[in-house]
């Protein structure tokens, strides 16, 4: 072992470790993209501020736990959970959210904040307050040896693959299909699209449902590597908004770039040593690194990296 004390700034024990950290950063970034993808649809494209996004992530995780427990298989829990959360999002839009499109953003914040409280309480009644765990499915439970002490779970790599798949399909649907065009047009000018004979109300309902299903999917997929616990959604919520703000409202591409940036900044912020003029900056301030990145990007491009100028 080489003593870390000799290492003052920007240095790693070896190049190998640097590569592994790079992998960690990219992997975390992809996971962040998955978690925030639902919010990209709902907030970024529809313009609805859904602060309960984290709650759907938590609900997804708890669904994975209870459905996998009931059915005995993660692979059954996954599709059932997606259908349930999508149906739930559909109902929610029909009963509550659609009344707020015409109103100020503040009403959306109030309503969805109320939903957080309702969901937390419902979670407590339905599933209790204990910490739960979900088994990694047998098929993906292996690990790859990276060094003789460190191995990398195959499940994490699978998550990355799912994230890329979700990103590619979102991009394709939004940019290359007629539906995507209608969604984007509807978000841009609701009345105009309506007058062209497109049922914007129904379209919004499906988009919202898809956004909720994506949040649920993220929770379900993250459940086996994370633990399932009360309030887990609140931890990801803020990062999700940071992703959208950095990437630019409504841009799937932007969300992807922002997620990767955040993943890398967070990872290297925790392990790099940075001292300027005797001030210890990293890793002491690693908790702030992501927000400093956001502030810097907003100064440079207030609309986000891929955002449209308004």
């Amino acid at each position, binding site marked *: *072992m080489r*003593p*870390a004390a000799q290492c003052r700034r920007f240095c*790693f*024990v*070896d190049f190998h*470790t640097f590569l*592994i*950290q790079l992998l*960690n*950063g990219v*992997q*975390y970034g992809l996971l962040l993209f998955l978690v925030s993808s639902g919010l990209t649809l709902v907030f970024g494209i529809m313009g609805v501020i859904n602060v309960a996004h984290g709650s759907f992530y938590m609900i997804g995780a708890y669904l994975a736990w209870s459905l996998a427990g009931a059915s005995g298989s993660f692979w059954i829990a996954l599709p059932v959970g997606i259908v349930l959360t999508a149906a739930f999002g559909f109902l929610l839009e029909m009963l509550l959210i659609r009344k707020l499109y015409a109103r100020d953003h503040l009403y959306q914040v109030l309503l969805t904040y109320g939903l957080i409280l309702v969901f*937390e*309480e419902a979670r*407590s009644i339905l599933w*209790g*307050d*204990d*910490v*739960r*765990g979900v*088994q*990694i499915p047998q098929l993906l439970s292996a*690990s790859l*040896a990276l*060094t*003789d*002490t*460190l*191995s*990398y*779970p195959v*499940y*994490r790599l699978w998550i990355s693959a799912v994230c890329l798949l979700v990103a590619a399909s979102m991009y394709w649907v939004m940019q290359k299909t007629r539906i995507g065009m209608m969604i984007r047009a509807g978000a841009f000018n609701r009345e105009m699209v309506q007058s062209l004979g497109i049922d914007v109300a129904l379209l919004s309902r499906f988009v919202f449902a898809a956004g909720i299903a994506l949040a649920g999917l993220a929770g379900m997929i993250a459940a086996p*590597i*994370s*633990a*399932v*616990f*009360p*309030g*887990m959604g609140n*931890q990801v919520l803020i990062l999700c908004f940071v992703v959208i703000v950095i990437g630019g409202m409504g841009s799937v591409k932007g969300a992807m770039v922002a997620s990767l940036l955040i993943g890398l900044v*967070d*990872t*290297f912020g*925790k*392990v790099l040593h940075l001292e300027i003029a005797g001030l210890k900056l990293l*890793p*002491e301030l*690693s*908790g702030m690194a992501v927000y400093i990145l956001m502030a810097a990007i907003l100064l440079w491009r207030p609309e986000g990296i891929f955002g449209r100028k308004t």
Partner: protein
Amino acid sequence: MTKQVFDRRQFLKTTAGAVVAGAGAALPGLVLAQGARIKVGLMLPYTGTFAPLGVAIENGFRLALAENGGKFGGREIEFSKVDDESEPSKATDNVNRLVNRDKVDVVIGTVHSGVAAGMVRVTREAGVLHMIPNAGLSQATGVLCAPNIIRTSFSNWQPGYGMGVALSKRKNVKNVVTIAWRYAAGEESVKGFKDGYLKGGGAIAKELWLPFPNVEFQALLTEIASVRPDAVYAFFAGGGAAKFLKDYAQAGLNKSIPLVGPGFLTDGVLEAVGASAQGVETSLHYADDLKFKRDKEFRLAYAKTYKLQPDVYAVQGYDTGLLLAAGLKAVNGDVSRKKELIAAMEKTTVNSPRGNWHLSKAHNPVQDMYLRKVVGVENKYEGVAVKALDDDPSVMAQCKMG
């Protein structure tokens, strides 16, 4: 928010009390002084992540009360309950509800250290008896200590120190990496570990920190793998602890680098993490299979009453009841004789399920720290790490009682 749970039994008691009070109205003074109830204010988390801990503490306290015939010092107890929501920003308002509005004689609370810090600031000024059944912040029995503030649980430093001493005796553990959340509890726990471990001539290879409550451990696990220490000391709790144990095992580190920590690393999460935590060693003032007769009786009574297995939090609530009972007995239930009441508590040796303990001069428990090892879903007792451990000497030196 006040939550008054008012079941039928309490209703009967209250109406019965009203009838008695009505009858006693003919003879005011004497009867009222004898019959007035002692008001106990419970400020605990009843919602949120820590809700099960709050419930366990209250259950333990009520079990001690029931075993004492429903009375302390010959007087009945009346409860006021406040849900502290583990929300430090509401701590002052919440504790003021108990102290100023309900005018309670004793405040019991709480779990979260940040909330407890807010409570202590109020109870210190008000002078009301305040018993802390969990929160391990050093200030409560350090710089903010006071005669009326009494802790029945632990200080964050204690379990860390216990684990440090245990590791310092192992010849093959020469360098250790510590990893913890960077906030008061994490820093105090790591300090305890270092104070215990460094005395044995070992070294700390690296201190790793995460902002609280960040649970993205992968980057730091990679660091641990590249440093290759002989052991890792980790401080996390609740959901974060569960995720850390799983990530540690999935990174394959559990095969080559032993993981140790304070008891909170493995308490309450073993069902969730399954095989990941097997063999993890921790130190705490309680274990799942202590050999005391007292503990066996307590576990049986608790399981019978609540249809639940007790945990360390239930024991802390129970001990709060035992200590309060001893104090009130000495003054025949007269809470106005506060000095004598506190002096009696200071002299009490609590015959607890965790083993005997007593208060230090700074009012923190002087207690045995046990070494435990995870086997199946239990924290199995392995031995005593440190006997009759007092708090961090540097913290005690800050306590100016008077």
